[in-house]
């Protein structure tokens, strides 16, 4: 039996990026919501709900980069120069928000205000940059002989800005959902209001991004059965569970908020993200550099992929296992007086 190594690695990387978006999504969302907190003490609690796990969450982004380099080096070499500015902006913003976890606790009055602002601004800029990367990626990258041959600002377009706005709303929803789950009292009530607003924004922007994506490239439209003057039902039908999942996710989140549930709003937000992710991926599959390079063309040598699979096959389940254990250790509500009992 021969394994389809490129396909297996495409699936593994897709899952890694999905995990990154969901996990770092809620802690970036906390940063986006930071300016709206009622008091400095509330901000401390918000940050403390993610302090033990944010570093592990961000490691999925390192795996995204390192994994792409190792498994699909020709995609890595083509995409990163094309998206140079938003990627570098994302990295710099992640630096400012990442150090803020420790620096906020160490700084004195004025310094603390500065690092509070750095955490909020860094989270927002990193999210916008990720949205621009995603938008620039989906609208396609110009290659010649496997090398990026487009323009410096190709990634900047109304479409990519729309995707960036959608991602900000999405991460804010994840962050608010997480806070409803992990906090109590006044902060939890505030998080519910944030979640309602973010939910409305996500519903509108998700619909807008979905229709805009159909117009971005004919290949995407064809995947969804759009034939120019109407939908081909035979092609649209197998795709329909994806928008259906988004609808269910939005409904679950809304019902959870209405019934003052603790966990369901976050669960609903995760479903919406899963749907959005699958929907976008279905549009450009099998490309890994949209409309220029398929995942097979970009794949590394078989012997490298095989070695990676031997290692990854053992290590990835272990990583998922101990990451889940760490979440289990830090389960439960985080209150203002935590740590002193």
């Amino acid at each position, binding site marked *: 039996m021969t394994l389809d190594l490129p396909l297996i690695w495409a699936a593994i990387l897709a899952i890694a990026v999905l995990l990154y978006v969901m996990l770092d999504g809620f802690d970036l969302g906390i940063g986006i919501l930071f300016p709206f907190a009622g008091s400095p*003490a509330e901000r*401390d609690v918000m940050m*403390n*709900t993610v*302090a*033990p796990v944010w*570093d*592990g969450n*961000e*490691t999925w*982004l*390192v*795996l995204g*980069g*390192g994994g*792409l*380099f*190792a*498994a699909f*080096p*020709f995609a*890595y070499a083509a*995409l*990163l*120069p094309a*998206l*140079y*500015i938003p*990627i*570098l902006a994302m*990295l*710099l913003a*992640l*630096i*400012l928000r*990442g*150090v803020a*976890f*420790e*620096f906020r*606790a*160490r*700084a004195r009055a004025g310094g603390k205000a500065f690092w509070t602002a750095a955490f909020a601004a860094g989270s927002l800029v990193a999210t916008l940059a990720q949205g621009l990367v995603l938008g620039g990626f989906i609208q396609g990258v110009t290659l010649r002989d496997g*090398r*990026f041959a487009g323009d410096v600002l190709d990634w900047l377009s109304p479409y990519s800005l729309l995707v960036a706005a959608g991602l900000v709303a999405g991460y804010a929803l994840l962050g608010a959902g997480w806070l409803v789950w992990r906090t109590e009292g006044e902060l939890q009530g505030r998080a519910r209001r944030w979640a309602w607003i973010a939910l409305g924004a996500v519903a509108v922007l998700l619909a807008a991004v979905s229709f805009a994506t159909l117009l971005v490239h004919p290949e995407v439209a064809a995947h969804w059965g759009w034939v120019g003057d109407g939908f081909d039902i035979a092609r649209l039908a197998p795709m329909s569970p994806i928008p259906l999942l988004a609808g269910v996710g939005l409904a679950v989140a809304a019902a959870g908020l209405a019934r003052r549930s603790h966990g369901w709003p976050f669960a609903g937000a995760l479903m919406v993200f899963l749907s959005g992710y699958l929907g976008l991926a279905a549009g450009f599959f099998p490309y890994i550099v949209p409309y220029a390079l398929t995942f097979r063309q970009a794949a*590394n040598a078989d*012997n*490298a992929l095989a070695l990676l699979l031997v*290692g*990854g096959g053992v*290590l*990835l389940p272990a990583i998922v296992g*101990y*990451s889940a254990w*760490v979440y289990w*250790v*830090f389960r439960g509500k*985080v209150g203002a007086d*935590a*740590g002193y009992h």
Partner: protein
Amino acid sequence: MHLDALMLSRLQFAFTIAFHIVFPSFTIGLASFLAVLEGLWLATRNAAFRTLYLYWVKIFAISFGMGVVTGVVMSYEIGTNWSVYSAVAAPVIGPLLAFEVLTAFFLESSFLGVMLFGWRKVGPRLHFAASLLVAAGTLISAFWIVSANSWMQAPTGYVRLASGALRAADWGQVIFSPTFPVRLAHMVLAAFLTTSLVVGAASAWRLLKDPEEEESCLALKMAIGMFAIVAPLQLLAGDMSGKQVLRYQPAKLATIEAFWDTQAGQAFHVVAWPDRAAAANRFELSIPRLGSLITAGDARAEVKGLKAFAPEDRPPVGVVFWAFRVMVGLGLAMIGLGLWGGFICWRGGLAHARGFLWAAVAMGPAGFVAVIAGWIVAEVGRQPWVIYGLLRTADAVSPVTKGEVSASLVAFMAVYALIFGAGALFILRLIDLGPTAPPVPAAGARPPGNALAAADGAEAPP
């Protein structure tokens, strides 16, 4: 120097990685030090060990965080700025870098959460296990990154296809390329030296203020024990590494020593002013025949000079020559400090030996300087190659514009200056307060089960 996208990309990579390497070279040693402190506390129940753990873990958290965020940059910068290198090198060393993420980064980042915030959430043994796993993660990370770098310095175990592409032929030879074991030892010893010098300097500073502070005296003794042993070992590892440079990268060796002519019985230039254009040293202060003795182990041996290599294959000489002398000079000073400290520990009266304490404080940053100097020797010395003999740095760069790279380089310099300034300030403030400082009023609520919360409050962890 012509500032095109290539040169700017080189400057940016040099800047971001030199900045990044400061943190791992400190936290690799510090993670092990913390694991030892916690193990000693569990074994002896001597509260001083716990006090030291809770103190150094705060400094570890700041340094580790800075290491993480500057490290994320590296996994993308290879693609943004060195896309040709990425496509050429990935078939061979791609798996090595992915294994670093899978075996080390997840381990460190996941268990760091337990280490910092898990005092009340898990039992003492499980917490100790978390400290051990973080320490193991830092060493595993060093293993893979030095393995990948060593392969780039002396590539083995690969084949070149008709298309020019590289393929791994023997993974054992790729991972364990000939210079790897010695270079790994050299790097890990450097990390342990760096950490022990910082711990020594911080503890000496406290003793200068308060000679009765027992915790600082204990930590200083542990630090002296470490660098007194490791500094001489590092001299041996460095010498072995030099012998391999002679064998695998003779142009780098000639650069380090500013040898221009190939001859027997090369002189050792203590100081020199190498001039690449003239292919000679404008000035030199030399000891006859010592150069051949040090580099080849035989005073009469013939050692190649730079003129044996085409001008376009010669590395920049001055910076490598001087970086090497800074590294070795500091290494010898570390050995001296170890001997001096060892003598005082044997004689007694360490807490009042003010001359030694000041010397230990002055040597606090020496490890960082030596690490960066050594890195310059290794990385500038292998120019003009990025993969030795296979791919030139000039051919490895991405199709990016001068404008993009100038903007990102300036942004990196501004952001790194800011976070370095703030991080250094917070660490120096903690060092000045010392391990037994009364808790400052908490800046905010600490996360659940936070060791720092326990340290801030009156309660002892379980």
